[in-house]
């Protein structure tokens, strides 16, 4: 357990990050579980197109043989037929190969995109079910990069690396088989070269992927820095801090450069090395072949039993080239695979996070009163009830009133440090309860507990007499409306943003809510009224206007209990009066929790709780607290010199 907002290192530093074993297996398992049939078809297609491309050397073998034969008999005496018929056969094979590779490419397009899509959705679904604590303890940028960088590495793995690996592996198998068929001795020479190539891949390729992983990390750091500075750009300017910023940036930028140039250097060097080992091998094989042909008495050991002749050596030389080309191909994907595994590992980390647990079984239902009894019904009646199934099979209904009681509540974000001590409070239906106190006194924490963003360490919270741990979280939160100081609007029209509170609300309901929140006036003055698009958290609105909108959004949800956490802090007091009149009308008979600094916001509350260091030190209404001349009196008169 860590303190909220404490960053967890995304990757162990220093040591070379090595992908865990089993990650690749897990990806392939997921992939095959979803696209078994398609992948099998794709592999068959790969098989065919591989056959088509490898048969090219067979073809060359044959054509050389037939040309030699043709030289003896002449073009018009059957050589033309024998060559044309061979070409016709090849035509057939090639057409098959083309169809196969086309089919394979299309299938892989569907598989890759489908797989990414379902992985993205799984990640997002998972993320929605994570507790608030996760979001409080993980930097948002880190979570974001799951959807950008990490998914992208998977795309390359699935769409490029996997098919070409399968293809190369198949080609190599076919080639090796045929090489054995032609000459075992020469094949062994080729194997010798493979060992050297492996060695090169391990060293050069290994270095390259090491630096690629480091480059990824450096990119992450650079992005983080840029994001922080760009969003704080105005502050940077006000403080004339541009030069220092640039200096810091240069440092990070240079680090990225050094990692990137190393990573790319190694990657770029790999190709010529592998290619030229191939070249040298080619010469070597040609030489050995030539020597073997010229040396009398050397018998060819082969599966075909063919004697060593041109018909063996020339195709063999060509196959050597194909063989090394394929190995080079595989080595090219080395970096992709390493990066994809690192990305996949992070994705799995998210997927393996513990979801928010919900053991609640009490649900919120529409209800109607029939002969003094509460009866569940389907349609919206405006009356709600808690449906409480008991162990003995009976079900009781409790009318939703909005009665909230907290008893001897203790809480800390970490077990070592309690933020709330022994907090007890009662909010009766219809009451307005205010929390005041210096910043950091624990006011917001109390509201985090009511809607179970966090769970109490000790003590109980009862809602209409029911322990909130028994209430299903969704239903509990449905019954609470929360307006936070930090407004979070979503991309979409003003209307859509208000409707977020109640998805099936009509336009009229939304407008009524906007009027209630006194947002109607400014909305109608926007260029397109309720259809004005809001982007990046409503950056085209002032902070106060954003708050009015989030109040409207909450009002349309029409919740029985409402929590206003500094919800009007940026609204001028004259507007606030109008808003609160509307709110009072709306909240008549309902429970409201208010957190505010402004006296005018809270002074008409039924109960005011003064919190200090996580303890309630005073309680009572405004008049009483003023009369007591205690902390509240000090806080709100500024008369601290008492």
């Amino acid at each position, binding site marked *: 357990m860590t303190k909220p907002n404490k960053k967890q290192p995304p990757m162990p530093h220093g040591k070379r990050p090595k992908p865990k074993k089993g990650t690749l297996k897990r990806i392939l398992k997921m992939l095959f579980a979803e696209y078994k049939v398609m992948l099998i078809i794709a592999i068959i297609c790969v098989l065919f197109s591989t056959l088509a491309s490898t048969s090219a050397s067979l073809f060359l073998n044959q054509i050389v043989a037939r040309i030699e034969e043709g030289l003896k008999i002449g073009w018009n005496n059957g050589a033309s037929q024998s060559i044309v018929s061979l070409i016709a056969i090849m035509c057939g094979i090639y057409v098959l190969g*083309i169809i196969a590779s086309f089919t394979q490419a299309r299938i892989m397009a569907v598989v890759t995109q489908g797989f990414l899509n379902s992985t993205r959705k799984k990640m997002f679904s998972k993320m929605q079910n994570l507790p608030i604590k996760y979001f409080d303890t993980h930097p948002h940028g880190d979570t974001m990069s799951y959807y950008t960088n990490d998914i992208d590495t998977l795309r390359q793995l699935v769409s490029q690396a996997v098919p070409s690996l399968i293809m190369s592996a198949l080609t190599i198998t076919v080639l090796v088989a045929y090489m054995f068929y032609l000459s075992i001795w020469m094949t062994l020479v080729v194997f010798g070269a493979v060992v050297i190539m492996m060695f090169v891949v391990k060293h050069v390729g290994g270095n390259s992927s090491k630096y690629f992983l480091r480059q990824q990390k450096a990119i992450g750091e650079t992005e983080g820095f840029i994001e922080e500075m760009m969003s704080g750009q105005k502050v940077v300017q006000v403080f004339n801090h541009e030069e220092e910023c640039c200096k810091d940036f240069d440092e990070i930028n240079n680090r990225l450069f050094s990692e990137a140039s190393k990573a790319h250097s190694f990657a770029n060097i790999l190709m010529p090395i592998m290619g030229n080992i191939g070249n040298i091998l080619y010469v070597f094989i040609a030489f050995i072949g*030539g020597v073997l042909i010229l040396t009398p008495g050397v018998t060819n050991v082969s599966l075909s039993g063919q004697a060593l002749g041109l018909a063996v050596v020339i195709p063999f030389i060509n196959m050597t080239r194909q063989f090394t080309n394929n190995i080079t191909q595989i080595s090219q994907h080395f970096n992709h695979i390493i990066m994809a595994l690192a990305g996949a590992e992070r994705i799995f980390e998210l997927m393996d996070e513990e979801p928010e647990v919900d053991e609640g079984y009490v649900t919120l239902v529409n209800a109607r009163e029939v002969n003094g009894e509460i009866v569940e019904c389907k349609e919206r009646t405006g009356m709600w009830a808690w449906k409480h199934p008991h162990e003995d099979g009976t079900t009781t209904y409790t009318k939703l009133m909005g009665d909230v009681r907290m008893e001897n509540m203790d809480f800390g974000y970490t077990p070592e440090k309690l933020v709330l001590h022994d907090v007890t409070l009662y909010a009766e239906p219809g009451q307005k309860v205010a929390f005041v106190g210096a910043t950091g006194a624990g006011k917001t924490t109390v509201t985090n507990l009511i809607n179970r963003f966090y769970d109490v360490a000790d003590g109980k919270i009862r809602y209409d007499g029911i322990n909130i741990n028994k209430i299903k979280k969704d239903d509990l939160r449905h019954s609470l409306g929360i307006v936070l100081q930090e407004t979070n609007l979503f991309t979409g029209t003003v209307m859509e943003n208000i409707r977020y509170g109640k998805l099936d609300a009509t336009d009229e309901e939304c407008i009524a809510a906007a009027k209630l929140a006194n947002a109607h006036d400014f909305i109608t003055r926007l260029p397109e009224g309720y259809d004005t698009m809001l982007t990046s958290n409503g950056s085209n609105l002032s902070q106060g206007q954003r708050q009015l909108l989030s109040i409207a959004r909450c009002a349309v949800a029409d919740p029985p209990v409402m929590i206003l956490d500094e919800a009007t802090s940026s609204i001028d007091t004259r507007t606030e009066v109008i808003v609160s009149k509307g709110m009072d009308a709306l909240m008549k008979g309902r429970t409201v929790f208010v957190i505010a600094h402004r006296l005018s916001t809270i002074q008409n509350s039924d109960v005011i709780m003064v919190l200090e260091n996580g303890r309630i030190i005073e309680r009572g209404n405004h008049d009483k607290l003023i009369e007591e001349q205690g902390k509240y009196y000090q806080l709100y008169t500024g008369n601290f010199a008492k």
Partner: protein
Amino acid sequence: MNVIKTLMKCIREYKLQTILSPLFIALEVLIEVMIPFVTAQLIDCIEAQSEISVIAKYGGVLVLLAVLSLTCGALSGHFCAVASSGFAKNLRHDLFYKVQSYSFSNIDKFSTSSLVTRLTTDVTNVQNSFMMIIRTAIRSPMMLAFSVIMTMRISKKLTLIFLTAVPFLIIGVTFMLKKVLPLFRSIFKKYDALNNSVQENISGIRAVKSFVREDYEKQKFAKASDDVCDNFTKAEKLMALASPLVQMAIYVVMLLICYIGAKLIITSNNTELTVGGLSSVMTYGMQVLMSLMMFTMIFVMITMSMASANRIVEVLNEESSIQNPENPVMQVKDGSVKFDNVSFSYSSKAERKTLENISLEIKSGETVGIIGATGSSKTSLIQLISRLYDVNEGSVSVGGIDVRKYDVKILRDAVSVVLQKNILFSGTVSENLCWGNKDATDEEIRRACVLAQADEFVSAMPDGYNTMIERGGTNVSGGQKQRLCIARALLKKPKILILDDSTSAVDTKTDALIRKAFRDEIPDTTKIIIAQRISSVQDADKIIVLDNGTINGFGTHDELIQTNEIYREVFETQTKAGDFDD
């Protein structure tokens, strides 16, 4: 091609590598072209069953060539990596420095996330294209030319067969440009939308959870994700045509060469063409086709990265709207402020001016409060003082001199603004405070914090002034953040201190303490305070009441209570309980 010209300027100290890399590639190509030629000789030797020493000679030459090619290849690869990474580094450097020189109105033009994308993804795209260009722009045409020449030396007739591949390529390129490219452009936009929805969801997770909108969000995301998936699949399916097309071209050419070559060998009885020659032609043929493919690929890639290049150049070419004057005034005499008939609006197209006909005078050392409804242009007014924006009409003077005549840096050091939307940066508390004055001593930092009423809670933090602040200052509460921001501004020892609603999350008592500290400790500094609370401004020397961009009232608390309707109303809403004792 201005875009490319602008980008080229960023190569700078990596010019040598940028030139060396293709140079070595050219050498590598030369050797690579020679290899099959020598190979053909070797094979012919084997075929003719020549002496081993002759075979060994050719073999030796080939090995030598391979080693040379390896060296050139490795060197060019290295230079290319350095050149492209260096180019990207310079691009990021120039972009970042450019943004640092932006004025507020420049910043308003680009959103933060778009700037971040331009500095990261777009730079990477351009870098990759740059690498591609260095590596293949020389290689492919050279390879093509040499291979064609070599084939022509072996057989002119067979060379003509390569032309049959050209129609396939033309079809391929037109198809890519016409169909696939626009699709990819729209995919990038859809991707942005997808990322945006994740971003919003993460930062708004409390809103999502408290409205129990997880399922709704999942649906929304699934829709965006499906959208990307569908379009991408469509594009990739179209792209799937590319590789069979390439294969088709290769196969057709190969079969034709085989047929015509075989005929030529047999009919001419090994004189016009040999078996070895045929196999060389096949090898060259492959190279010709491959370089043609590469060429088309580069063409498509460059077209795709042009969008990124344009976005980068847009940032680089944006001129800062606020420039230092010639012979700037380098000293601010005192903290007096004068607005002379000032009008201002953020955009020239705006119907209504944000500020209109503002005239007022503030003497050095005075405390001035500003009150006004949401949207009454309070923030706009004070931003003109430190020349964060320039006025449209009239003039703003500080210390008796028009702000446009000062060196911007000098002016902003003298006028310290605590912004409404304030931000702390990742780093320790001390580091953050040192933004105000990087040479500040520990005592100075502490004193600023005492004045801003921040010392108490900072000292109570586990590591005191060395406590780490998380990115965006998420581990301090709103009120604490505001007080740290005030302390940071105080460290500048400004002549004018402006607080833009900077104590909204601070309780009244602390707020009063801060103002008292200002009064006692920095009496010579002009203090301008925007606030919602009357109590924050009522003891000011003068109070400005703003209404819809015009001055509605200007005077002391007592005067305004008597004469100004808006002020009286605001006052009453905050004290109507009547027993609010001050």
